[in-house]
Structure formats: structure tokens, C-alpha cells
């Protein structure tokens, strides 16, 4: 059920973008301690290259690996390494991490750090001097991973494969989760590096065509990007605001009308998709040799005192991030890493910000529905809203009662856990949680 400019299914949660969408990006005061996880990407964890009491500089590589799918990690502050420890990621996974005590005087702070990240010039011509190999090498050394959340190592994504040619590079500026505004602000305040990065990424992947997809609830970002893209041949495409338009399969369908095969990648239909933040990081890595050490995150929600868009060093604890936004209000009820549809609740604020973190959303009891679960009446709304054309109620109830084979027959593995089904369910059944249970049982079997 495809429609030009959109996709089948989906829901319209209240966008609540007004809390943060017009706030300028601020640089967080350098935290006293950062804990840089050695696994911030899909793939193999890095091995530490530094040890206790080593002095490191901002941007120095502190972890790397020779595995085929991995990305090095760099220090996000200048300071002294402490004893390696274990960090808990928002999804509950424990990974080795390197804590670094920041020195009182940093080489780049405040406005200087902002300028270092976003200040021009960002050329849109004369980029041919960089060969695809130059670009992927620079991207690899900079430790770039997908900043839209999946954190796939970017140099692998942009590498050319003669068996799988790419004709279109899709830049994802949708940011479909409610409350989040990081990508929006990047496009408004620093469209230059996004465009330059897009041109470089297309050159690396071999794409002739570049399209930027932006949801139509971000008119300022669309305008800003159109100005920056003028004369470059990059198409800025406005797509209908609907959750989850930012999911890459749905974005490929809405902008190009192509259907990514089940279990496959956009690469299978000749497309590579990268987030706007990743594109900006590509420009910085290739033109200036700067590694990925900071990222923009939106701290928002009705339960935070002062919503902000912050430029944060990777490894900063959530505690420091929340403190920079004025702290929690007394009616805060749930603190979520990411957006309210797919984010993970935090039980421990010592968790570090990683390269894939996009925001912190603090919800109050008024935002949350605390209605008891009732019986499924097979109303079929979950089918109507599922962007992947699945039957969520069948998969979920099969998983609840242990009928794994039935869950597999209903294609449980195709679920992307977007949450549309649970959002619309009149009976408030925890569909995503149950489907996740089914998927893990099937994967383990």
C-alpha cells in the first residue's frame, strides 16, 4: 500500500516539537568525567589503546579494532585516563569503556568548540580531488557511525562494491520521533557541512543522485537546506509528516518509490541512506581530519526544567546532560534515552551518551497512559498502522503463550519495533515488548 511521498500505515503521535525546535544549539560545559564506551556501533567492540594515567588530547584515538565491521573511538575531552571500567548502555548492554578525567583547561570549549564543528567554509565544488578511497579512509579513521541511532560504521556503508552498485544517496532529515529537534537545528544552523558531506558521501559510494528527505513539519530546515544546496544538484524533498517516516525503508519508498526486500538493505535497491548528522560529520572528517567526538542531542519533554539542544562530548553521563538542562521537574515520571516511541527508559543516570544518542525525553504522568491492559478484541487497528504490513496482535499473543512457530509464520522477524501498533491499541497490550520477546526467542532457536 504505497503512496507517492509517503508509506502505508504509520501513526500521528503529538509532535511536541515546539519545546525545542527554536532553541539554538548550546555547547554543554565540559563535564568533569566522561566514560567513552568501546562499543558504540553495530559490530565488533574496539580494544583499548590507552591505559590508566595516560594523558590524552581531544580527538586522540583511544580504541580501535581490525575487524571488518567496526569503528575506532576517540577521546572527547583532553585529560587523564582512569582505570578502564564497564558502562551500561541505554539498552541494558554492558560494554567496556574508558573513563577520562577532563583537565580544567580544554583546548576547545564553548563557542570555539561550536565553531570548530559548524563554522565554515564548506565548499560545494572542487571536491573531486578526494578519491572514494580517500573518503572512506578518512571516514574510517574518524570513527564515524550512523548518527540516526543504528550506529552502523559509515565507512563500510560508503564503500564501493562492484556487485552492488549505488545510484542514489538518500540523506535522512526526517527526525520523526516526537520532541526531538537535533537534526532540525543542525539543518537550520549548519546546512553547509550537511551539503558538503552529502557530496563527499555520494562520491565515495558512487551515487549520481542525492536526495534529502525532510518531514514537512520542519519548514525552516527545508528552507535552510534549499539555500545551501543551491547549484549543487541536490534535491531537497519534503515528505509528509507521519511516524515513522524516518525509518529508512519507509523513506526509500516515500522518496524513490522503491521497495527494499524483506530482510535486505537499501543497498539491494541501489540506495544508501545516511542521517544529516552523519553527513555533516563526513565533511568534517574528510576536509579537516576531525574525528567524531561530540554530537547534538535534544533534551526535551514536559518533565525537564529547561529544554535544550546541546552539543555534548561522547561519554558524558546522562546525569550531567540533565543537569545542564536545569534538572528534572518534580513531576517527571520517566526519563527516556532517545524519543518517546522507540527510546529506552533509563534506570541509572550514570549511563554515557554514545555516538548514536539523539536525545533525552523526560515524560510526566500526564504524558503517560496508565490504563490497565484488557483483552484483545481483534479490532485490527494494529494491522492498519503497521508500516511493515504485519499482524502485530498475532505475533504478540503467540509470543506471550510460547507459540514461537506461530510467531515465525506471521513474520515476526520483519518487525522493526517502531511502536505504531502499541500506540494505537485500544486494549493497551504491550505489543512491542511481546514481539521483541518472540524475536529474541526465534533468533536464539
Amino acid at each position, binding site marked *: 500500500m504505497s503512496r507517492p511521498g509517503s508509506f502505508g500505515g504509520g*501513526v500521528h*503521535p*503529538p509532535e511536541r516539537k515546539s519545546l525545542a525546535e527554536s532553541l539554538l544549539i548550546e555547547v554543554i560545559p565540559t563535564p568533569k568525567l566522561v566514560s567513552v564506551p568501546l562499543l558504540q556501533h553495530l559490530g565488533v567492540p574496539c580494544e583499548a589503546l590507552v591505559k590508566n594515567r595516560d594523558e590524552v588530547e581531544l580527538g586522540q584515538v583511544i580504541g580501535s579494532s581490525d575487524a571488518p565491521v567496526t569503528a575506532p573511538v576517540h577521546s572527547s575531552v583532553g585529560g587523564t585516563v582512569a582505570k578502564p571500567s564497564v558502562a551500561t548502555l541505554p539498552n541494558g548492554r554492558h560494554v567496556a569503556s574508558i573513563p577520562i578525567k577532563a583537565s580544567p583547561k580544554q583546548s576547545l570549549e564553548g563557542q570555539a568548540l561550536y565553531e570548530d564543528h559548524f563554522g565554515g567554509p564548506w565548499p560545494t565544488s572542487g571536491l573531486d580531488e578526494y578519491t572514494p578511497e580517500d573518503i572512506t579512509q578518512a571516514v574510517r579513521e574518524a570513527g564515524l557511525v550512523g548518527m540516526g541511532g543504528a550506529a552502523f560504521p559509515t565507512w563500510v556503508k560508503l564503500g564501493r562494491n562492484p556487485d552492488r552498485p549505488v545510484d542514489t544517496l538518500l540523506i535522512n532529515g526526517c527526525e520523526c520521533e*516526537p520532541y526531538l529537534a537535533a537534526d532540525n537545528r543542525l539543518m537550520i544552523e549548519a546546512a553547509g557541512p550537511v551539503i558538503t558531506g552529502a557530496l563527499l558521501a555520494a562520491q565515495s559510494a558512487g551515487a549520481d543522485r542525492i536526495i534529502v528527505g525532510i518531514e514537512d513539519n520542519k519548514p525552516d530546515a527545508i528552507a535552510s537546506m534549499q539555500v545551501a544546496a543551491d547549484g549543487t544538484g541536490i534535491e531537497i524533498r519534503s515528505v509528509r509528516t507521519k511516524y515513522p517516516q524516518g525509518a529508512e*525503508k519507509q523513506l526509500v519508498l516515500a522518496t524513490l518509490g522503491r521497495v*527494499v*526486500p*524483506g*530482510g*535486505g538493505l537499501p543497498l539491494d535497491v541501489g540506495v544508501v541512506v545516511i542521517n544529516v548528522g552523519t553527513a555533516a560529520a563526513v565533511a568534517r572528517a574528510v576536509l579537516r581530519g576531525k574525528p567524531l567526538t561530540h554530537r547534538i542531542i535534544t533534551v526535551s519533554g514536559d*518533565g525537564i*526544567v529547561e529544554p535544550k539542544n546541546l552539543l555534548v562530548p561522547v561519554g558524558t553521563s546522562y*546525569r550531567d546532560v*540533565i543537569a545542564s538542562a536545569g*534538572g*528534572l*521537574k*518534580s*513531576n*517527571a515520571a*520517566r526519563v*527516556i534515552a532517545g524519543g518517546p*516511541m522507540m*527510546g529506552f*527508559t*533509563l*534506570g541509572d*543516570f550514570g549511563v554515557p551518551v554514545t555516538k548514536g544518542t539523539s536525545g533525552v*525525553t523526560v*515524560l510526566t504522568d500526564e504524558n*503517560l*497512559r496508565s490504563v490497565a*491492559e*484488557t*483483552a*484483545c*478484541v*481483534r*479490532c*485490527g487497528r494494529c494491522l492498519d498502522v503497521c508500516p*511493515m*504490513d*504485519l*499482524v502485530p496482535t*498475532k505475533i504478540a499473543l503467540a509470543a*506471550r503463550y510460547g507459540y514461537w512457530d506461530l510467531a515465525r509464520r506471521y*513474520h515476526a*522477524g*520483519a518487525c522493526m519495533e517502531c*511502536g505504531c501498533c*502499541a*500506540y*494505537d491499541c*485500544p*486494549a*493497551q497490550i*504491550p505489543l*512491542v*515488548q511481546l514481539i*521483541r520477546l518472540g524475536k529474541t526467542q526465534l533468533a536464539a532457536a
Partner: protein
Amino acid sequence: MTAESTAKTPVPVAPGSEPSPPPQLHVAPGPHLSSTSSTTRRMMLDVLVGLVPVMAAAVTVFRWHAVLQISICVASCLVAESLFAFWRDRRPPLSDLSTAVTGAILGLSLPWSAPWYVGVVASFVAIGVGKAVFGGLGQNIFNPAMVGRAFVMISFASVMGATAHVRSDADLVVLTQATPLTAAKEATGSDLPGLWVMFLGNVNGSLGETSVLACLLGGLYLCWRRAASWEIPASMIIGAALVAGIANLLNPETPLTVLHHLVGGSLVFGAFYIATDPVTSPLTRRGKICFGAGAGVLVIVIRLFSNYPEGVVFAILLMNAMVPLVNRWMIPKPFGGPIAEH
């Protein structure tokens, strides 16, 4: 399965403010937002609102007979639901309004002349055999109202039969006439009321079926509110029209034309209110279309080839039996196709 643990976490509170109580945070799985207007109770309430035109038409035509019959059925259903719940040591789930809906539909499907005990027995069978035995709301295979209706149709055949609708000593004129389908069945074609009268509803029949106009109004409201899937009434009416049309072509002298079949009997009432019960109809769009079409075809077949003048009750029950199979055969392909098995 949902895990919610409350913990008082020491968290940074806004500086300069008086010590307000620290926030009480909890953890829970996502998604953390949900559509506020979407509840089961709201859906059932929508069905009751959609039944208002039908009940109004019933009261207009049948006066206090309608009020009595519907009240008996709704009350008996609520009592039955409570008794069966206590029997199973559960709290009666009356607040989700599904029992009231079953009672209203059951009452509307009975003839005005059925004695009080028919309504009571039908309600107890509907809730007990049609719903409680399967495990309560959402677990049943057969439409509970139809289970109750079929039970009394067969058990109390004389007071429920076609002739029972007619009483020569009835206090209202309309109750002295045969129902349109019965008149056609007994081949006294000259007694068929006009199509317009049948559409508006000033004819004899069971309480809810007479006014097709009322059923359409309420039914379209249900479809708009998404309490009923439009695919089912659409395919049921079209399926019935096709078979009736073929029958009409083969037998041009019959008094029952396609339009008579559509406005006579409880086809439209069944299509919008009974067949659309989400628990007992398929999940997917293709499944719903098959279900509706099958029901529509069966309604006409039963009307033409069986001894019953009306076929909606059994048509729906038969299609209900097919629903698990339809669901199984019509598993939709995921977007992009199934993931290739290794």
C-alpha cells in the same frame, strides 16, 4: 509482563528552588506514548451510539414491545455475565460495555412477540455458551448474540417461527401483517409491501431489521468511527446482491427482486452490526472481504433454498466458523516480502 519499578533516584533538581519533592521515576518498555482516544470501552460505546437510530426506529414501529424486549435482553446479559464471572472467581467485566452491546443486538434480533423467557434464555446462552465458555471477551469464535438467537430459534420454534410475528389481535396494525420475507416464502406475493416502505421500516419483522434507513445511518457512523470495518458490510451486501441477482435472472417471476432481498429481512442490520463484530471476523482486509461476501451469499442461499425465510443468523455463524481458517490462509506478506529463510 509489563515491568514497572518505582525508585526514588537522587536527581539534580533546579537550583534556587525550594526543596520540592524529588521526582518519582519508573522504568517501563516502550513505546511511551499511546493514542488517548483509543480504548475498547470507547469502541463499544460507539457501537451503542450507532444502535441508537435502530432502537429509535424499533420503538417507533413496535412501541413498548421494543422497549420491553431490548430491556429484558440487556438486563439478562448483564446478569449472566456477572454470574458467570462470579462462578470463575473474577470481577464481572461490565465496564467495557461489550455485554450491553451483545444484549442490545440480541434484543433487536428478536421478534416483538417473543415471551420474556425467550429473551432471558437467549441471553444466558449467548453469554454462557457464546462467550464465557471460550474465555470471555476476545476469545470466542461465534458471535454471542447469534449463538443465543440460534439457540432459541430452534428450541422455541413455535414462538420464534415466522408466523409468530403475526397476531391478528395485536394492538398495532403493522403487527397483524406477515413479514415481507415470510409473505414471499409462502408465495402470497401480492401482500409484499412496497420497497420504500420496507426501506423506511414500517413493516413487521424482528425489532432491529425493519428500518434499513436506520441501519444504514447507524452503520455508516460505525464505519466512520472505525468501530466496524466497512469492508464487511460492503462485501456482504454486494455478495448478497450478486446471488439474488442471479436468482432473479433465473426466475424472473419471483416477487423477491434483488432490491427486495436487500431491504427485506435483517441483511443490512446483520451486515453493519453483527457481521462486523471484530472478535469473530477476520483481521486482514482480504479476509474481511471474503468473510462478508461468504456471509452475503449464504444469506440468500438460505433464504431461497431452506425452510427458513431469513438466513442471516446461520450465515454469520457459518462464516464465524471459517474465520480461524481465513486468518490462517490470509497472512499478509510483510512490506518488501518475507525474509528469506536460511
